[in-house]
């Protein structure tokens, strides 16, 4: 479904943030990218929907190279990719349902987007999605009044409203308490199974990735150091991913 091949990225021209990153994510699979801070996890995620322009390589989403698209093609391709952020990135003064409805604006006209013209069916779908993530009663609450866990679930509903083939999650539970984290991770896991959406998650927690992911990709110093089933991630393997000297070696080598 998603194929990342030989991805390279350097922010300042000589020190590489990503060196030759390749991995694949299958349809309906939950894949977790783990690794120490500054390893390049966010860079990988943002290269996939081209929020960051990478330098070299290929990002194939259903055989379509995201890097070769022009502006309007890229816009269309992005509509198939939902994204969930650590800071939820909702429009706080708006209500939950308005935020969810933003998800369907991608395939509507500019005028409909400017005047917030949604069809009855779209509004009903948005409400159903909110009910699905357990926030049916909060549909008309301003998002600034919601708790962190609730905001993240609104974010998930918004991503689902796009009918995505792939959902990218950038540290989705880093600012949440354990209970909300479990809820969010379970929702994501369920989606992959029920809707056959591929989910690619940046995570810090080894335990949680073992628990919820099918496939784990370990990153250190901008390189893939582990790429296997979740069961194959032993404690030694995990320790290997988080090894500090790898980062240092990389800096010295480049």
């Amino acid at each position, binding site marked *: 479904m998603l194929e990342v091949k030989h991805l390279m990225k350097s922010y300042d021209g000589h020190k590489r943030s990503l060196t030759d990153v390749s991995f694949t994510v299958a349809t309906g699979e939950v894949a977790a990218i783990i690794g120490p801070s500054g390893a390049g996890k966010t860079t990988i995620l943002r290269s996939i929907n081209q929020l960051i322009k990478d330098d070299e390589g290929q990002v194939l989403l259903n055989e379509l190279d995201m890097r070769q698209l022009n502006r309007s093609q890229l*816009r269309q391709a992005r509509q198939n990719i939902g994204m969930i952020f650590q800071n939820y990135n909702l*429009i706080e003064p708006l209500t939950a349902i308005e935020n969810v409805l933003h998800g369907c604006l*991608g395939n509507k006209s500019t005028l409909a987007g400017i005047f917030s013209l949604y069809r009855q069916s779209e509004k009903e779908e948005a409400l159903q999605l909110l009910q699905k993530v357990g926030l049916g009663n909060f549909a008309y609450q301003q998002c600034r009044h919601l708790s962190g866990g609730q905001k993240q679930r609104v974010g998930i509903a918004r991503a689902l409203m796009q009918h995505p083939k792939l959902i990218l999650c950038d540290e989705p539970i880093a600012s949440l308490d354990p209970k909300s984290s479990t809820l969010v991770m379970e929702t994501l896991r369920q989606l992959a199974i029920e809707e056959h959406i591929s989910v690619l998650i940046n995570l810090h927690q080894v335990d949680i990735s073992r628990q919820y992911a099918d496939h784990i990709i370990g990153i250190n110093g901008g390189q893939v150091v582990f790429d296997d089933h979740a069961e194959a991630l032993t404690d030694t393997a995990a320790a290997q991913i988080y090894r500090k000297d790898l980062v240092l070696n990389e800096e010295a080598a480049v």
Partner: protein
Amino acid sequence: MIKPEKQLTIPTPTAKGPQFKMPVKLKDRRRVTIYLTLLVLAYLTMVTLPTMLPDHLNLKTASLTFLQNIQIMFFHPGLSNTTFVQLIQALLESILLAFLTTLIGSVIAFVLALVSFRQLVPAWVGLAIQSFMALIRAIPNVLWVLIYSVVFGLGANAAVIGLTFHSVAYLTKVYTDSMEELEPDAIETMRAMGLKNGPIIRQALVPNFIPSYLSWTFIRFEINFADAVAVGAAAGAGGIGYQLFMASSFYFNFHEVGVIVYLILVFAILLEIASYHLRKRVMGNQ
């Protein structure tokens, strides 16, 4: 970057001798410059003030007359040359002038602010617009009205265009600044969902921008009202400013000046109350 003049040497507790006084602020060149400037200014003021007094002016009688006039203005307001209805009409004229120029100015400024917003357009476009606006702002509001009154002739046209001109320059600057202060995440998120600029502006930028938009526009309305009064006298644009000019410089009627000043004062207080409630309402929604 402020650099301390000298490196502080902090003595070890074992060191003997006079007790070390630790400064709370480090001496730096900038502070010294400020103090020196203030000193020079104070000296200049002290030297020039006594020499400014013309010989034929008696400070004591002048002060007394001044107080007398103030007393006439504020304690014996009254009308003789104009009626109260005329004055209210004139006040409304000034308010409408301020309202119109703020309205036109805020619409144009909002568009210009979007066009110079770095997250939507290349940086050089914004820089060009902002530099041009800074140029307009550098010349005072009333002067613009005078310039335009040369072009269009004295009257309301020159006042409207001149005040709008400066409002646009001022509001473009503050709108852009408040847009840049907003979290960039919201716009990036919308971009990641594949939205075009139009919907992004409407759905992600506008809802977050409304509170600062309202408060800045309201401040500009206050400024424009004050300028509308001044311009009424200076450019013959009519309104309460013109009445004030006639009463004070033509009829020398301080009773009437008093009424006019009170009218303006009442309106300013009403404006303040309105802006307080507006802000509370917008913030209350947050």
